């Protein structure tokens, strides 16, 4: 084929010229909203708060340009949060009487919606993996569905009857698989996964809006209490769900692959199971004032940054599971469901790396921020507190993972196993330390 130089353009538009009118509209909206807030509320904000607002707005603006669906998401969250805040109208008692608050947009209600939507989304994604293809695939799906369904119901019964207390909170996770496997064969296409991704978007919107409304609620309880709701274990689990789902949705769009959802949403569902237990059994959702140690500007940046790290590591581990299943499927039965339904090794490996990379980068920032906070609150930027030490262990673990990938070119099965192991280490650093080791971070205890 020959080239006709006339048709070839060497022009390559710059970043800003590649933006669409909608992108500019988005930018205008963010800028106007920021200016509006500064003008109306600026007088009651100190320099840190104004600075935080401007930096947040700039990051949000960029994020909307970098990842277009974020624009719609941000609008939805804003609308829901404002609805919640205005429904309160300055009186906390409205949460019990106002219909919208009670059932939709109060912090508690929105988070419960998030939980429900995440469970549904998980089942939908799983259903897509069991989509109909042949009679054999239907039988297989029904078989798996029946087995997991029976196991889940047995677990529910054992937990409820008091024979194995606590099991009733775990067995819904097995039932999610059952629902997915039983409903999956209805469709031949990946329709269910598309539904799953819509549900995941909605869940993420409810979760974040719930946190934002809760932010307002902390002030309604008592103006001296007010705090950003990333301060106790209940709130950070909501944050974990939101961040992990959003990160996953980003990778889903980027890789144009819907089949990772079932795996990633499984770990999110595990967090939901914990959250439900924590809410219904322990009433941990009740707003309490912050202890003095947590009343710091650093909290607001340290915690969310950390959760980008945790989210990335969790996604990587679940893709590690998918990778191992795919490899096993290819070896055992190259034409089987595992080998053909799961994403390709290349995609899994690539996203696993990317999730760990972003997780590692943000985890590093979070640890440095934590050190700076510790220097201000505890008198030393590093005091070998169990939480700090475990953060170091997590960091060293992923540093070693990245080293082996970069310099030795390690790929595949060992790295997948390592990513899974990494999640156990991370989970211990996240909740295990608070449960078993105590130390200065013990306010996150169960």
């Amino acid at each position, binding site marked *: *084929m*020959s*080239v*006709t*130089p006339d*048709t*070839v*353009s*060497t*022009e*390559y538009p710059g970043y800003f010229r590649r933006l669409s009118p909608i992108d500019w509209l988005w930018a205008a909206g963010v800028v106007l909203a920021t200016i509006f807030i500064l003008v109306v509320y600026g007088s009651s904000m100190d320099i840190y708060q104004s600075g935080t607002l401007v930096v947040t707005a700039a990051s949000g603006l960029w994020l909307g340009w970098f990842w277009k669906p974020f624009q719609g998401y941000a609008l939805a969250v804003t609308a829901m949060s404002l609805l919640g805040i205005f429904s309160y109208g300055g009186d906390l008692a409205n949460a019990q009487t106002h219909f919208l608050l009670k059932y939709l947009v109060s912090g508690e209600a929105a988070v419960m919606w998030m939980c429900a939507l995440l469970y549904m989304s998980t089942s939908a994604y799983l259903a897509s993996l069991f989509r109909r293809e042949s009679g054999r695939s239907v039988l297989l799906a029904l078989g798996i569905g029946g087995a997991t369904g029976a196991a889940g119901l047995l677990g529910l019964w054992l937990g409820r009857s008091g024979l194995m207390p606590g099991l009733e909170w775990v067995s819904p996770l097995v039932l999610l698989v059952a629902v997915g496997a039983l409903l999956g064969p209805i469709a031949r296409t*990946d329709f269910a996964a598309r539904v799953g991704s819509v549900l995941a978007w909605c869940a993420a919107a409810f979760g974040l809006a719930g946190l934002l409304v809760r932010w307002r609620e902390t002030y309604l309880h*008592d103006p*001296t209490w007010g705090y950003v709701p990333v301060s106790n274990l209940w709130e950070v689990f909501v944050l974990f769900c939101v961040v992990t789902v959003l990160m996953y949705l980003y990778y889903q769009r980027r*890789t*144009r*692959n*819907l*089949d990772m959802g079932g795996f990633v949403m499984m770990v999110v569902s595990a967090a939901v199971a914990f959250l439900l237990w924590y809410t219904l059994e322990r009433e941990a959702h009740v707003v*309490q*004032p912050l*202890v*003095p*140690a947590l*009343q*710091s500007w650093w909290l607001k940046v340290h915690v969310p940054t950390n959760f980008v790290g945790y989210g990335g590591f969790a996604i990587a581990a679940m893709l590690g599971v998918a990778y191992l299943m795919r490899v096993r499927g290819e070896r055992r039965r190259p034409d089987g469901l595992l080998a053909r339904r799961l*994403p*390709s090794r*290349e*995609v899994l490996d*690539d996203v696993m790396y990317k999730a760990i*990379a*972003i997780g*590692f*980068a943000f985890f*590093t920032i979070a640890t*440095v921020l934590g*050190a*700076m906070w510790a*220097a*201000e*609150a*505890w*008198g*030393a*930027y590093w005091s*070998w507190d*169990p939480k700090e*030490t475990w953060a*170091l*262990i997590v960091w*060293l*673990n992923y540093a*070693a993972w990245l*080293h*082996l990938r*970069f*310099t030795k070119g390690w790929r595949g099965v060992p790295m997948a196993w390592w990513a899974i192991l990494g999640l156990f280490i991370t989970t211990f650093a996240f909740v295990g*330390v608070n449960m078993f*080791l105590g130390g200065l971070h013990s306010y996150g205890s169960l």
Partner: protein
Amino acid sequence: MSSTPSDPPPGRRSTFAVLMGFLGSMGLAITLLVALAVASIVGTVLQQNQPYTTYLLDYGPFWHELFRTLGLYHVYSAAWYLLILVFLVISTSVCVYRSTPAMIRDMNQFRLGVKEKSLRSFQHNVQRNLHTEAPAPLMARAEAVFRARGYRVRQADHGDHQVLSAMRGSAGRLGYFFTHVAIVVICVGGLIDGRLPLMLAEFTGQLEIETRQVPVSEIPEQSRVSPANPSFRGSVEIPEGQRADVAFITIRNGYVVQELPFYIEVKAFRVERHATGQERAFETDLVIHDDMLDEPLAHTISVNHPLTYRGYTLYQASFRDGGSRLGLSMYPLGRGADRPLPLPARIFGTYSQTAEDGSRLRVEFTDFSDTNLTLIEEHGVRQSIDMGPSFEYVIRDSSGAGRFYRNFQQPFERDGRMYLLSGVREDPADPFSFLYIPLDPQGGVDRFMTFLAKLSDPDVLRAVVDETTRTAAGQFEGVDEQLRTQVADTMLGLLETFAVGGYDEVIAQVQVQSPEGQWDRMADIFLRVLNAGLDAIYLRVLAQEGIEVVSEADDHFLDDALRAINALPFYGSPFFLHLNDFDHIQASGLMITKAPGQGIVYAGSVMLILGIFLLLYVSHRRCWVWIRPGATGTDLVLAGTSNRNMSDFNQEFDDIAQAILGDSRPLPADQDTSRV
């Protein structure tokens, strides 16, 4: 931690080169990373920096000795742990030293001498034979395409063929340099702020660790560190109204005294509370007295808001009682209970008392708190209430064994009746058992104490018993004096027994004095006699108060009082201490640090973050256009590579190929073509 060290040519290598090769090797780096992680775990599982006696109790002498020798109680300052860190720093430094030249070369070398064959083997390559186009415009276009995308471009004419080399994102290579240098910088900064100078001073014998609990003035010079010490982390507790110019640095099972070049005076310490009672803020008003200051510097610090002065940073770390003064009334729990003795006491003070049997008791006042939040569940609603001020003390007998007490000042309401609570326990780890002393209508303990005093006074008892039995005898004909005296003696004995040992002792006496078959009947009779006597004493108490008609509340009071007296043997104290008033003096626990390495560590951290983002997100991409004018047209190879994120580079390379050649590279067969 080396990325791709250029190995020297094979052959004999010098010892130095072998050593450098080992120190900079990836294997060692990974080993050290893992070793550091595992060693760090040890320190989180085994609780660090506890008193040695605690360890001894927990692990027994054998393991204690072993753990102590291995430094497991202070892992992070143990020699072997520091050795791992030092090796990590050396390994990283060697790696940086060996790899940096190659890295800089790589950033700037365009590799124009690249061979056609190697380009054809690239994963991303397009090969063409272009019939029509001349080399010059093709190269010009390629250069324009690359430049428009931010590539740097070089060209070379090798006579028979021409090469264009383009690259972008070479800054990504700096990521390697930044991250690894940052690790070294952070470790060095940390080492500066670490305990190295103190450890050296201790090692050379210049510093001795003090393990005694003695006043600062008695601590010898060998255990003091001068203000010249560049970095330390110590703490000091200063009671309100007092000052200090030292901080204590804990080392293993002892401490050394860090002298400060100024005085810190604590004016006041406050716990601010929310309306619900939970703590909102801990604040200390302090004043720095320094000869360098024209006038003392007053400042308020709180958690998260320290004060930095002359490179020293003062943090609000803790608080405890600073020797509060208590105005107490001591009620003997027995004879003379109605005549309390005033006892002015002080927290951390010790007072001596003589028990009834003549033995000496030591009373040690240990703590006072003006607020006691307690979580109470009432009708399914959990809420915290403030129990008011309380103080704690220990009563030790001559053998040193102690019972631990905690008394509240304010009454506690239960079922509509008011009590004064005093908790007791035999072990500080146990929960308190409470003595409920009923309060009289005036809200005091007077009625209870008067009752107890009368019950414990033989003269009163004799009078009560006589009067009661006489009244009873008068109601029945034919009761002779002998029977009356017999009943009176029984009643007296029972009252005395009850006063000392409660109902348990009374029942025990029944069992001793009567055959087993009659226990129930005898107990019934005895208790009736006893209660008649107790009622009579109580009526006397009420009469003394001027009460003629006994109300239901007065009845309840008697029940409660008897219950309390019944519990006195378990209470175990010969007296009750009632808090009348107090002067709350608190001590503020300050942490004082000097960390000159902090700036270095922060700089290293910023470098680390910058490096990680460069390393992970700026890929070093290279492309080459190789052309040779041939007989049938121009032969062309377009090839490219990226050191990171190959999947993203796919798209970029296709786009470049499209722009230069007017078509795109066919997708490789293994490319994932999923939906969405």
